């Protein structure tokens, strides 16, 4: 028996044992959105429980840090308004924008940042380390990123924000259930589409079964991942985010909630087991803006702005004016769109280094390898990149900054190699042709919500990355707070409902199947097969035939292989249950891809059987849900939330 290592499982094994918990507000996923939600609801005097698969003290995508925070339009130095920050689609960005929740983010962003400071978070250069710097306001001691004129993206020291949120949750008496993985939503009468009245969960150390009964529930389990890309070895290394498997999507899909934009979800350009540590190679992107890159002979790689003009100085990159961040939107034919997909994973917002770098290297203008010229930057720019930004970004303090420094790397003396064109750039990396469409964002779809951030299931609210087109820390914090205000109000006016024993038993049968087998398919092989389905049948080019074969493959795996899955202990059981969620997420993405019958430039979406590119009729959110276990698709206007300013004023409750 390969699993018999001779060590007895160190925790009590409590398979099928039931523990019931009653709470007013139930938070599923104790990440950034979940912790802010719990804090907000607890401050209103409600009984709050967090269900967290990892350890809340540092779990989730924001658990190991945040270095850029925004759109902080209300900070006293910003020259940008909330309306400007969230234009839909944002001017020149070439993407669909879920403007409703991003507007909420912009409106409450600065207050939330100040609240973070109250909890002990460092948001200002209080030691005057950067006094007089171009990116600093010497009165408030705030520091800014990217565009030093607009001043609405803050540089913050967020490496310890998550432990601080955790402490605040504990101080306020939030009940935290760590190592407890939510697996299913409970609905009134056990019905698909019914009011959400709680959730069930599995402890991934003991196998114990939890039944949470709640008045209101907030789902904040972030994104789906491991749908296109999974390595059976290095399984932790090939994800950008820690420990996520799309559980929030899968359980709500089964429960009948409506999703949108899932057809845009694709392999995250940030995940492949073959990369170097993120932000740990010489580059010019994101955290590393505005670092200079040089070639093997020391020749500088030019930067250009959105207007296509070369920027001569470092200062131009951070004072871009009209050539500022964003992307040129162009009308394309299918052929152009397809040609574009080949390099879409490398497309980045401008200003950045020249996009035709590859051709110019081949033509001999620049010599590989390239390096980040930190020593050539001014001391302040160098130390804000290698120190404040790399150091707080998330998964960088220990893995990059400290590890590199301890090994002898000196940012004032040494050129950190870039892996552009060598493989493993540490950021954008296709692992095989079918997976190269990083497109814009990777996982992109999410819950359809109203102005209360309530999903289409009554009593279920959604916050954070699980909303469509949502990927940022402050957005998670603010929407967590907002959803909790709404959920608390709802919970205060409703009583708990009777749970459906049948629904609970169904869920138990689903979860504990793999422990009843004595041998069989293990989770990694399953996960890899699910990825193969998506690589082959939901890749760069789609048509109905391909997508349907994908769905058939998934049905086959579900019917014939899942019953043979084997989990010898609660940890492996947890991983196996994740794979069941991945299967449902794949299904949701395939079904959504079938529902969009047109190509879209903004979504890097190609249906060869529907070759019209961006026909106006399809400029809308395609929605999808299950009703009586059948697929129901529909659509919503692109700005279904109506006027942002007046609706926010009406609904925000502030």
């Amino acid at each position: 028996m390969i699993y018999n290592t001779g060590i007895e499982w160190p925790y009590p094994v409590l398979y099928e044992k039931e523990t019931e918990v009653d709470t007013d507000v139930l938070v599923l996923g104790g990440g950034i959105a979940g912790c802010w939600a719990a804090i907000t609801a607890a401050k209103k005097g409600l009984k709050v429980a967090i269900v967290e698969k990892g350890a809340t003290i540092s779990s989730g995508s924001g658990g190991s840090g945040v270095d850029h925070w925004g759109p902080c339009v209300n900070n006293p130095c910003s020259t940008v308004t909330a309306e400007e920050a969230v234009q839909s689609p944002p001017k020149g960005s070439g993407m669909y924008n879920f403007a409703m929740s991003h507007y909420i983010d912009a409106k409450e962003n600065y207050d939330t940042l100040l609240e973070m400071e109250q909890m002990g978070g460092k948001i200002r250069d209080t030691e005057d380390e950067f006094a007089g710097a171009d990116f600093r306001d010497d009165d408030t001691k705030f520091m800014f990123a990217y565009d030093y004129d607009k001043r609405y993206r803050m540089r913050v020291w967020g490496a310890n924000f998550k432990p601080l949120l955790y402490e605040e949750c504990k101080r306020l008496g939030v009940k935290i259930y760590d190592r407890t993985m939510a697996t299913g939503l409970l609905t009134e009468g056990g019905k698909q589409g019914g009011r959400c009245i709680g959730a069930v969960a599995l402890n991934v150390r003991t196998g114990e079964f939890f039944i949470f009964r709640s008045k209101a529930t907030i789902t904040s389990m972030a994104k789906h991942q491991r749908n296109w890309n999974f390595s059976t070895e290095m399984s932790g290394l090939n994800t950008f985010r820690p420990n996520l498997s799309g559980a929030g999507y899968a359980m709500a899909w089964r429960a009948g909630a409506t999703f949108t934009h899932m057809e845009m979800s694709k392999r995250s350009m940030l995940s492949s087991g073959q990369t170097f540590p993120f932000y740990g190679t010489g580059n010019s992107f994101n955290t590393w803006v505005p670092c200079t890159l040089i070639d093997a002979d020391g020749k500088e790689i030019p930067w250009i702005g959105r207007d296509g003009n070369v920027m001569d100085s470092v200062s131009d990159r951070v004072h871009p004016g009209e050539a500022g961040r964003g992307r040129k939107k162009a009308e394309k034919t299918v052929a152009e769109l397809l040609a574009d997909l080949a390099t879409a994973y490398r497309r980045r917002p401008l200003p950045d280094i020249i996009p035709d770098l590859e051709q110019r290297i081949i033509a001999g203008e620049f010599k590989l390898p390239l390096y980040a010229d930190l020593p050539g930057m001014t001391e302040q720019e160098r130390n804000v990149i290698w120190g404040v930004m790399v150091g707080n970004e998330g998964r960088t303090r220990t893995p990059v900054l400290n590890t590199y420094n301890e090994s002898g790397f000196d940012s004032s003396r040494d050129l950190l190699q870039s892996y552009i064109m060598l493989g493993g750039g540490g950021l954008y990396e296709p692992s095989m042709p079918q997976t190269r469409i990083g497109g814009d964002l990777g996982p992109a779809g999410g819950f359809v919500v109203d102005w209360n951030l309530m999903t289409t299931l009554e009593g279920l609210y959604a916050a954070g990355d699980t909303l469509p087109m949502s990927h940022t820390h402050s957005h998670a914090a603010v929407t967590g707070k907002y959803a909790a205000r709404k959920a608390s109000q709802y919970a205060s006016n409703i009583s708990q409902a009777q749970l459906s024993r049948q629904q609970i038993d169904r869920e138990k049968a689903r979860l504990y199947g793999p422990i009843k087998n004595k041998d069989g398919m293990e989770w990694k092989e399953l996960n890899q097969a699910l990825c193969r389905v998506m690589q082959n049948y939901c890749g760069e080019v789609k048509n109905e035939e391909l997508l349907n074969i994908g769905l058939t493959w998934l049905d086959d795996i579900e019917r014939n292989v899942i019953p043979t899955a084997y989990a010898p202990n609660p940890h492996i059981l947890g991983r196996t249950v994740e794979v069941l969620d991945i299967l449902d997420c794949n299904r949701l993405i395939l079904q959504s891809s079938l529902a969009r019958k047109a190509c879209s430039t903004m979504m890097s979406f190609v249906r060869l059987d529907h070759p019209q590119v961006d026909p106006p009729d399809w400029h809308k959110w395609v929605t999808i849900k299950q009703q009586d276990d059948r697929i129901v698709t529909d659509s919503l206007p692109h700005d279904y939330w109506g006027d942002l300013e007046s609706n926010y004023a009406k609904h925000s409750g502030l």
Partner: protein
Amino acid sequence: MSEDKTYAVPNQPTPSRPVIIDAELCIACNKCVEVCQMDVFIPNPEKGKPPIIMYADECWYGGSCVDFCPVNGAIKLNQPLMQRVRYKRKATGEHFRI
């Protein structure tokens, strides 16, 4: 296991040593077991001994185990060899790796 015998063992997963624990310094407080997001460790059945790295291949290299360890140097992140980035000294052109 006896040191002078040869055993049949399966291959190690890759990477197999995501962290290195200094058994001399480790106080077996199991803080790393508590904070690891992926649940890579399990407590050692022998009291007072460092935790066991059970699911090495699941390591996300986030570094919480190092960040929260109460003893400086007792646990170190050990980036897999293929993830070691190279760098060049600007003045001399010498090449190094992390």
